[in-house]
């Protein structure tokens, strides 16, 4: 049984990574966007830690998912909300678990429909590998390698913890 890491520790690492990369790129006022639901919880905390003033963006990628043609529309879709102009903006995109890369592709497509951003930095709590698209995170709290029968899920919002699940496959 794999020991699940503590979220707070991973957030520390993500915070540090973000500070480094923002400084390196000379970005002082990025806009943070969380992908629902886990990404939003993380984005809230990171935005606070970084002391950012721009209100948080929340993305629901249901309208952009590439599995619509297989499973139909997610009945729990909620409106996305980007309370800032994305045009030319430097964006930090935050998700909880990165795997195939399909969610990130959908999220980037959606962001572009609001306007052309200046840049996007991708930060993820856990990177499980198993990529199906050429997408890599700029910052990952932890890289994990799991057997194909296992998945992780972020539980929250208070406290945040990572849960290991058997897929039954």
């Amino acid at each position, binding site marked *: 049984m794999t020991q699940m890491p503590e979220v707070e520790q991973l957030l520390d690492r993500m915070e540090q990574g973000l500070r480094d990369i923002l400084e390196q790129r000379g970005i002082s006022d990025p806009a943070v966007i969380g992908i629902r639901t886990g990404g939003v919880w993380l984005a809230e905390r990171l935005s606070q830690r970084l002391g950012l003033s721009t209100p948080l963006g929340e993305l629901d990628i249901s309208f952009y998912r590439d599995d619509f043609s297989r499973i139909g529309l997610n009945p729990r879709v909620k409106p996305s*909300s980007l309370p800032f102009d994305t045009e030319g903006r430097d964006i930090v995109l935050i998700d909880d678990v990165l795997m195939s890369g399909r969610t990130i592709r959908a999220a980037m497509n959606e962001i572009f429909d609001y306007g052309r951003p200046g840049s996007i930095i991708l930060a993820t709590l856990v990177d499980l590998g198993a990529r199906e698209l050429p997408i890599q995170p700029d910052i990952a709290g932890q890289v994990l390698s799991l057997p194909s029968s296992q998945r992780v899920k972020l539980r929250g919002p208070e406290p945040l913890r990572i849960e290991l699940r058997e897929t039954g496959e």
Partner: protein
Amino acid sequence: MTAQGPVTKSLQLTEEGQLRHFLTLDGLDRALLTDILDTADSFIEVGERSIKKVPLLRGRTVVNLFFESSTRTRSTFELAAKRLSADVLNLDINTSATSKGESLSDTLLNLEAMASDMFIVRHSQSGAPHFIAESVTPGVAIINAGDGRHAHPTQAMLDMLTIRQHKGRFEGLKVAIVGDVLHSRVARSQIRALQELGVSEVRVIAPATLLPSDVESLGCKVEYDMTRGMKDLDVVIMLRLQKERMEGALLPSEREFYRLYGLNREKLALADPECIVMHPGPINRGVEIESAVADGPQSVILDQVTNGIAIRMAVMSMAMGGQMADRNRQLAERKSQ
């Protein structure tokens, strides 16, 4: 209440309870109606972006199949389909095939040969979209854009969305529908939606000649006197009156109708002060409604128009998604056998 018809239910819903056609609100429960409203809320947000388009129906062909012309309704469906990235074909059938004696079944076969994925159907006969949904090949979604006197479910749902935006709830609301209920598909769908969503009272206000014979069986209260009927209302929905009604000996004159059932400031003052005024359009000013009311602070008629696109995007994407999920399930089942 009479049976909702299990036929309709299974025709509209997949085994998993997903929408696959949208023909009537009969047989759809509160949870599903709420899903439609919630999904539409998300599409309203899409309409506020610089690019008002999502890729859900990319590569799909949507055919506007209008056997009865209506530029307004057709345009909102067209815009909704385009915002879902679908290809749209507009066909006004009353001017083409059927007037040459081609049967509806034959027309459909021809359209299916064009590999369409969805038909938006408006027809002058009640039940026509049901008939089409029963005859088309599986995988093609049918959306009812108004059939005879039967149903206009997208219009009713956009009205529900408007009510929810302004009232925040359905519980406890008193709603009246005023005017030509007999000929109104909108009214039938509204009554059904309001009841399923749990308002406390639906009144219909009209002279007996403009009400269906057994209107009480729909579960609404009948009121002939509008001044009495306006009391305590939270929502008043005015219906459009067609000029033909005078010829059919249903009404003596527009003037008398307006005097008795037209909504003016005096009558509106009898309702709750927060009462909102709705009308499916197009409005006959001075026949159903006074201009000062239609353009007044309590009127939400223009919100209805905006909400119309979002509701149509919601049901189109939900039904198309249901069809595709259905097809996938069947493919998987076939593979596993």
